[in-house]
């Protein structure tokens, strides 16, 4: 039943409720596809087919009783940063070897309550630190997309590379992901999928392995804008267990995104027009502007003068918070332990063997900027710059409803192409990281193809908790872009 794999979440819900197929059949077709494709793509690092079928059977029972939840019977992939009760959770790291959480993240609890089915855990950069999925202890995940007339393996982006690859290759109907500096939106752009990073505080962080707590936010990767709305509906909640979770009711996103965008004002931040920006990215952006004009939106140029400082400030704030969050991996409470002569050498040996190079680099960077005598010069300074960045957005949002930018400066690159130079890799997040620094919602939507035949994305940045309008505007890009090509199925 290969055609079941083509369905969007919205259409699958329809088919399931009409009885056109069962949740078990729908899940089984995904399990078979994962079997056939995963050796080539390495998107799933843990497959849970038995659990999936068990969950699907329960979904069928609930559908029969008329008790279906909003994701009833929908098979999802879960980024392996989310704790799943009784199911191994690694964060893409060797240091969490054998860790089986005794609890589930709030996001997962919400998804299972909504009837979703878990197909397995998805590959990611180690502790979500990376933009290419190459830092995973379980090996790189591969992008289903290849350049025209070329078989070179491309990265799916990161850190949510497994989520993006699995959704783009139809191995799951949708996936959970997390975004600290662009980790949902950049892989979505690289794989021709929709990636939504909600407002900080909209989705609970409880039970998600922490990277940088003031920046981390979970959201969905899906194939359509509608599906992103459906998944966010199920993922979002107020959660007493996360003190940064915001106590606002979750609106009905599908209701909010109905209707036209006529009268909407969209800002074009001039600082995003980088020197040396490629013609195809420039043209894509202009295309987006034209689509919005046609749809009746007003386009206004705005200025976000501190844009260029977002990335360097991020590379102080994120490593500082990471060095603190990752102190807990010490060979005592969970995961790997490498013995030593005494307790200190046990810690040092465990962390030396358990962490990969990029994670070590960031922990050390964070330890340095937080160490005695440097706190004010680095961390405090960066947090003040962050206030400046946020002020830029506040001013812009007095004039406009949302902002339109490219998601990434280039299409997907090849494995190994940028892994030699950390700074070059960091520049991938140049258009996405400002959003995390200010805590805003952002969405990447497939908008066109590069000359090399790869997908490209446009990003919309919204006001806090304005996800409904953001989704409504995102649909304009989706509809205007029309039917974009699908990757060729070279993997199965």
């Amino acid at each position: 039943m290969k055609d079941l794999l083509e369905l969007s979440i919205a259409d699958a819900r329809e088919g399931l409720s009409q009885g056109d197929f069962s949740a078990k059949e729908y899940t089984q077709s995904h399990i078979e596809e994962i079997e056939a494709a995963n050796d080539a793509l390495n998107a799933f690092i843990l497959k849970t087919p038995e659990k999936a079928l068990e969950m699907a059977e329960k979904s069928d029972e609930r559908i029969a009783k008329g008790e279906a939840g909003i994701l009833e019977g929908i098979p999802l992939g879960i980024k392996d940063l989310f704790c799943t009760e009784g199911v191994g959770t690694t964060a893409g790291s060797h240091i969490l070897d054998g860790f089986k959480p005794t609890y589930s993240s709030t996001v997962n609890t919400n998804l299972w309550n909504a009837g979703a089915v878990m197909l397995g855990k998805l590959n990611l950069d180690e502790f979500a630190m990376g933009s290419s999925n190459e830092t995973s202890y379980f090996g790189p995940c591969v992008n289903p997309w290849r350049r025209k007339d070329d078989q070179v393996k491309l990265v799916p982006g990161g850190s949510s590379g497994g989520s993006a690859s699995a959704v783009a290759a139809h191995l799951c109907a949708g996936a959970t992901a997390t975004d600290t500096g662009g980790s949902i939106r950049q892989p979505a752009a690289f794989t021709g999928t929709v990636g939504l990073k909600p407002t900080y505080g909209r989705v609970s962080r409880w039970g998600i392995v922490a990277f940088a707590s003031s920046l981390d936010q979970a959201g969905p990767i899906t194939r359509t804008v509608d599906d992103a709305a459906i998944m966010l509906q199920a993922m979002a909640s107020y959660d007493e267990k996360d003190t940064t979770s915001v106590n606002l009711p979750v609106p009905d996103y599908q209701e909010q995104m109905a209707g036209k965008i006529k009268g909407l004002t969209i800002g074009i931040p001039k600082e995003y027009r980088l020197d040396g920006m490629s013609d195809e990215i420039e043209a894509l952006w202009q295309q987006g502007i034209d689509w919005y004009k046609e749809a009746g939106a007003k386009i206004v140029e705005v200025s976000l003068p501190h844009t260029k400082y977002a990335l360097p400030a991020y590379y102080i704030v994120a490593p500082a918070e990471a060095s603190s969050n990752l102190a807990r991996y010490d060979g005592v409470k969970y995961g790997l332990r490498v013995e030593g002569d005494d307790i200190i050498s046990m810690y040092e040996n465990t962390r030396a063997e358990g962490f990969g190079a990029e994670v070590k680099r960031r922990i050390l960077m964070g330890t340095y900027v937080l160490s005695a005598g440097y706190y004010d010069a680095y961390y405090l300074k960066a947090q003040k710059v962050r206030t400046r960045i946020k002020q830029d957005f506040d001013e812009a949002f007095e004039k406009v409803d949302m902002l339109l930018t490219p998601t990434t400066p280039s299409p997907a690159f090849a494995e190994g192409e940028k892994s030699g130079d950390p700074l070059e890799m960091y520049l991938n997040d140049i258009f996405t990281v400002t959003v995390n620094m200010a805590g805003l919602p952002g969405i990447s939507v497939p908008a066109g193809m590069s000359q090399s035949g790869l997908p490209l994305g446009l990003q919309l940045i919204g006001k806090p908790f304005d996800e409904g309008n953001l989704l409504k505007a995102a649909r304009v890009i989706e509809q205007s872009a029309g039917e974009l090509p699908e990757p060729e199925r070279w993997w199965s």
Partner: protein
Amino acid sequence: MQINEATVRKIAHLARIKVTDEEAKSLENELSSILEWVEQLNEVDTNDVEPMTSAVETSMMMREDVVTDGGYAGRVTKNAPLSEDNFFVVPKVVE
């Protein structure tokens, strides 16, 4: 900001990560170039600017000062590489 190998070793010890000589050398270069790159933040005037403490303005929620969770030491120690009677076991730290 240029940092030397001794500084790399010092912060590696603070972070409790053993580094090899080879790693220390390459970290020296990598961390120096990242620190040099973030220097540009000094161009930003941050006088009279409060550091950002939360991305979204919210007031911390208050709750009753009562126990709301716990009582399952077995679950807490379940994933420990080494445990005994619901205690974590570590190398001897007191002589």
